């Protein structure tokens, strides 16, 4: 247990400093602090601030990963300073020195403090971040399914720390992208049975070129989030609801692209890349490639395709007719499609709501009154 006190150790922090009033460029500043290894990087910074240099700038408040103030990059990875153990951070440091920098994708104000209003909050405001239910309210509470509220608690649990925004790879090349935090916030309303304008929200987020179809599916936000909000997963749910359930066809080829791949795999069992592009642009049929929008796109891609053909990179036969799995297997795949797609409502397992099977197992250890020996005592700190 945690009571196994590990003695304090020395840790060296390399902090990215920037003083906007000095006119100097950002620089690195090192401090060596002494704390128990499982204390947080934030506690390390606060010790440096208290003992050596009070001018170190970092937003912080709760120390317990709930207020969302201390989003930074530690050894290049976004996260909360209070939520990262010193020993863990040191293990991932390149040269044994823990590097702490301000978050990315947002302008730096001072040291590790970034301008969240200019990016993060602006994007949150973009998604109409309040419940839309203007009609008369019930006398008591709205009656809604139990699971629905557990479900949106996942996105409600977002602490607006900006870690996901910091390293969003779509935003890096396309700063206008609404981004992971704001789109997760959008799901909080789309998934809320009390909201009355879900379809309008979905149309808005699908049609915006910087909306749900601008996500590159890179998992950066999933990894960055300290609260298990799974922003990219929420974006994919928005796509499913917009595309599969609400049949919203967007101007960004998002829904067409998804329908195309889904249909091609039904028809071939494998991805038929040569059909993918034209159909995504022109419409999801073999004729799609003759659609003017597809024609234009094909024309611009023609040099690439021709070059690939000339280099025999692409087998002309496969380019024309695609590759297929054996007929009997293709039939099996089609049957899977028919069965799953004919369900009256689309079924979706949400592990956040259901938990994992091992979660329901009985506890392995429990303290029996009068028998203190059964309290598990581990000799090693099991912090992680």
């Amino acid at each position, binding site marked *: 247990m945690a009571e196994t006190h590990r003695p304090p150790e020395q840790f060296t922090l390399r902090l990215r400093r920037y003083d906007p009033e000095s006119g100097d460029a950002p620089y690195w500043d090192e401090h060596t602090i002494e704390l128990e290894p499982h204390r947080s990087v934030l506690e390390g910074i606060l010790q440096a601030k208290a003992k050596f240099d009070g001018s170190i700038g970092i937003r912080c408040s709760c120390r317990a990963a709930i207020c969302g103030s201390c989003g930074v990059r530690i050894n290049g990875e976004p996260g909360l300073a209070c939520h990262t153990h010193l020993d863990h951070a040191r293990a991932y440091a390149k040269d044994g020195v823990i590097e702490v920098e301000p978050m990315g994708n947002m302008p730096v104000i001072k040291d590790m403090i970034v301008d969240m209003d200019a990016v993060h909050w602006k994007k949150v405001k973009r998604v109409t971040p309040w419940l839309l239910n203007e009609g008369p309210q019930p006398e008591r509470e709205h009656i809604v399914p139990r699971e629905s509220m557990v479900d949106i608690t996942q996105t409600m649990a977002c602490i607006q720390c900006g870690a996901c925004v910091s390293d969003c790879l779509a935003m890096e090349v396309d700063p206008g992208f609404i981004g992971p935090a704001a789109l997760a916030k959008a799901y909080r309303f789309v998934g809320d049975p009390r909201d009355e304008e879900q379809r309008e929200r979905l149309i808005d987020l699908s049609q915006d070129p910087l909306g749900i179809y601008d996500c590159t599916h890179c998992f950066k936000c*999933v990894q960055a989030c300290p609260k298990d909000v799974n922003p990219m997963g929420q974006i994919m749910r928005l796509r499913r609801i917009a595309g599969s359930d609400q049949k919203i066809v967007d101007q960004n080829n998002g829904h067409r692209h998804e329908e195309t791949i889904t249909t091609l795999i039904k028809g071939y069992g494998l991805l038929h890349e040569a059909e993918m592009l034209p159909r995504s642009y022109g419409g999801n049929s073999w004729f799609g490639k003759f659609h003017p929008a597809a024609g234009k796109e094909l024309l611009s891609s023609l040099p690439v395709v021709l070059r690939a053909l000339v280099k025999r990179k692409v087998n002309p036969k496969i380019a024309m007719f695609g590759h297929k799995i054996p007929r009997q297997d293709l039939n*099996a795949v089609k049957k899977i499609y028919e069965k799953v797609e004919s369900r009256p409502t689309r079924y979706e397992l949400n592990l956040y709501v259901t938990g994992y099977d091992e979660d329901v197992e009985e506890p392995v250890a429990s303290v029996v009154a009068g028998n203190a020996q059964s309290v598990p005592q581990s000799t090693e700190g099991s912090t992680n």
Partner: protein
Amino acid sequence: MKVAYWPGCVSRGFTPELHGSMAKVAPLLDIELVELDRANCCGCGVIAEHNQELADTLNARTFALAQQVQGAELMMNICSTCQGAQSECQERLDANAQYRAHVNETLAGEGLSYEKGLTNKNFLWLLVEEIGLDKLRSMVKRPLTNLKVGPFYGCYIVRPRNRLGIDSENQRDQYLERLIDALGGTVIEYAGMRKCCGFPIITMNKEASLKQAGMHLGDALDADADCLVTPCPLCHLNLDMQQPLAEKVVGRELQMPVLHLPQLVGLALGLEPKELGMSRHVVKPTSVIDWSSAVVGAAA
């Protein structure tokens, strides 16, 4: 070792040199490939955007087919995207027995059933964890001395860490560097090595997509890489096939060859660039071919 081999779609479609080079390399590493030629596309994350149960069922079918291969130690793939998309489905299937039963009911028509706990490893993981880098080092015929190789992982094989079993014990997000080193090459680190190639949005936001590809290629070029190596054929499409267009978007000449993982391994095991299908790349891997002839020349 015998593996149930899932080559994926793209390795047999737009990047046939990947499938071909894997077939050439496998016997040299004593890997017996039992190709899952009845299996279907993993859905590359896109089917899951359409219908999660459909994606899970299609992949459960592949897993069930893999589990039927007699004597196979595990399932192996050669595509980061397949790895990521399949791991995501497997996470749900393994987490919940009720859901697994529900999915298996759909597969029952074909007499298939997925049992919890399949091991599915990308070729990269298999090289490091099953064959071992020390053994691999001893098998190298032609060390990649002086060849400067930049790793490009592909998002699906490095994130999220929990799902992919990456932690301080299993540093799967460092394997490419270790592998290049074991093959005798020089590792070139650059900003984009674990970033997104841009492929998933090529049809939605072409400009941003190509900007991503162009940026990473440019970073690798600035870091003085001779070539990149990737375990992901979809990344290969954006980095190699789309490179001429990416050059236009970022406004600079790139000419950065991008190798598939088995091609790089094959090179070190003594195979020639041509038999590894390198001539099929859009960006001619001149630097690699030159390196190869120089090594052969020096040996002669």
